[in-house]
């Protein structure tokens, strides 16, 4: 008896919680937003790598030539990410200020 009653009450509560979002219908998933978030995260990760490479060079793990080469590659990748970001945000390439 207690079991059946609890079953009903809990089922009702849960159903309400689950039904609430369903009232807002027809919001399409925007592919853009996802890509934006992912690219921003990738950009931050790339900046971290640039910083790390410089630290590695100063700590003596990379010679000047090696570091220059790695740094060049990383910055090129960073630029590519920024380009793709700008394309989504619909802006022309300028000095990037972040949201």
């Amino acid at each position, binding site marked *: *008896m*207690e*079991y*059946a*009653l*609890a*079953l009903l009450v*809990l*089922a009702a509560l*849960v159903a309400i*919680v*689950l*039904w*609430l*979002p*369903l*009232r*807002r*219908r*027809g*919001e*399409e*998933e925007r592919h853009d*937003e*996802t890509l934006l*978030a*992912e690219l921003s*995260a*990738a950009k*931050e*990760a790339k*900046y971290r*790598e*640039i*910083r*790390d*490479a410089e*630290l*590695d060079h*100063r*700590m*003596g*793990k*990379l*010679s000047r*030539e*090696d570091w220059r080469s*790695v740094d060049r*590659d990383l*910055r090129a990748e*960073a*630029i590519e990410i*920024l*380009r793709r970001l700008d394309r989504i945000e619909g802006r022309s*390439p*300028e*000095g*990037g*200020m*972040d949201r």
Partner: protein
Amino acid sequence: MAGVGSACLAIALLTALYAVVASVYGARSRRREWISSGRRAIYCVAALSVAAFALLEAAFLRSDFSYALVAEGSSTDTPTFYKVTAVWATQDGSLLLWVTLLSLFSTAVLFVTRRSLRDIAPYATAVLGCIAAFFLLLMVGWENPFDTLAMPPAEGAGLNPLLRHPAMMIHPPMLYTGYVGFSVPFAFAIGALIARRTGADWIRATRRFALIAWTFLGTGIMLGALWSYTELGWGGYWAWDPVENASLMPWLVGTAFLHSIMVQEKRGMLKVWNVSLICATFTLALMGTFLVRSGILDSIHAFGASTIGVQFLVFIGLVIAVSAGLIIFRLPYLRSEARLDSLLSREAFFLLNNLVLVGLCLVILWGTFFPLISEAISGTEASVGPPWFNRLVTPLALVLVLLTGIGPVLAWRRVTPASLRRILVVPLTAMAVALLALLAFTGAAESPASLAMFCFVAFVLAVVSQELWRGTMARRTMTGESWPRALARLTGRNRRRYGGYLVHAGIAVLFLGVAASSAFLDQRDVRLSPGDSFKLNGYDVTYREATAKLGGDSAGTGAPISFGAVLDVRKGGKHFVLRPSRNYYASPDPSLGTISRFFEGEATSEVDVRWGLTRDFWLAVRPDIGSLDGPIREADAKFADSPGDVQALIVAALAERYRSNPPPAAFRAIASPLVVWIWIGGGIAVLGALVAAWPSPEARLRRVRSLYSARVGQELSRA
């Protein structure tokens, strides 16, 4: 209230299934409201699980014996701490704990990623829902923690005395948190595969969860080892028992995973490897949970065939099939984005470390399942013991420790060989110095493997110290800060890196303790009467007197009778006292005599250990109560129907008889060097993991970000 608890579980099961359906539907039809509903369903499962768990705890705390579980596992005289923890000492209760932890972790990760990973999160929700549904189904269908007894007994059976040890009670929740934690990256990996978003995003989102899981699992394993060390049987901390191995294997593969994801984050390589690894880690975690309950392997922990072994096997099979199938079908999306630049790079050595770790796991897997393998191949069931494991694991462990020293020295993409030579000078010198010192001043050469390990540990510690030093120096030249500030800033801004180095240092120290204590321990078994003494490892040990206590021993286990010994241990000017004892719990068996039953129940050894930085002195006693057999049987006959307080008086008299005239007792003494460094090393590793997992402050990031984006932006406009 048991009905409410059962209802919570039933509704939770339905809700979890709804989560799967709603999330998948929402993902496929791109309808955000269904995805949101599915996510909320997981939140509901968490709420219901927590509620059910709270109800069960409450029942234990008030000793409500109408609950079958409480009657089995607790009693009115169980200390409160053990009442609380007895919940997960039972099968049903531990399943509920698993689900509760899983749903809480799922809630956390889904809440954090509710606005990101829009393609992956719904599928991850579905996977987490499936896992929760499985465990809930086990409870609802077979092992319901809320089963009630029609006729509740007046007193419960009490917690098995062997389990009344703090470490043993915290060990399961730690392990489960570890297992559960790995289900989060697993779910997101599956989601990433389904959604074809196989970049590093699923990794970035779940990296911290993987690290937290790894930390908890490692701590759980260490607690198990600590418990093993302080309980009689062997005085050792690791016996290569199948259940111990079952928790170590996911930890090893999880360690490999934590390293290889860094390679994917930075270079876009090892994609197939990473998804395979996390699927393997999760599968091994399930297997770890399953092995404890199935009885398929003979072990000191084998609890006999249980009612849910088959279901687990089916679920594990399903996980393997789905993982393998998805990986194969999505292979085109898992191509590497870059190639290995140079063998002298972090990527290459991480790959090497992965191979060693996976190799270790395979060795342990083989040895653990060997009884089944040999039966399949040759028809006879054979097993391999600790000597085999040690033989194969030791060389791999040596290579692993060496790698933990080389990794920090390298950089991503490549390291200039000349620079590498310069950097390695100090650590190699440290290693050489250590080698010479050990050869000259200690007998470490007797065990070549231990000698090698000590040298490698010296190497690792030197490397980590050097990295901190050079990093601080580099920072000072860039910013001109003072020493402490530069060090703090350096580690604060590179938490992952320096936290990782700290973990390496901790692991090295741990292996130092393992090598020293396993190769150089001294052990003696003796029989002593009061006044006798013996020597061990330079210590003089004298058995001073016997002790006998009733009802209430120092370990807080609520034991009725405790026979022990007081021993003086002296070496040079040092003197300490050890008091090992043996607890005798009454047996509930009605066929035993009224007085005998006090001595015929479970008995546990309460070992006394003198912890020390250089060595532990471990002592256990086994009193000989055979001399009391005669008087006990007399008492059984005379006082068969006496009330409880008279029985207590008789037992007290017998105890006093033992104490005043004890027959020779058996003692085992072990002096093991550097054992405490195992626990210290583990602690350092945990600290390092915390540093690595700690989130970086946002403000600092933003400042750096704008600096760099300005610079990069300049180049962009110039391009």
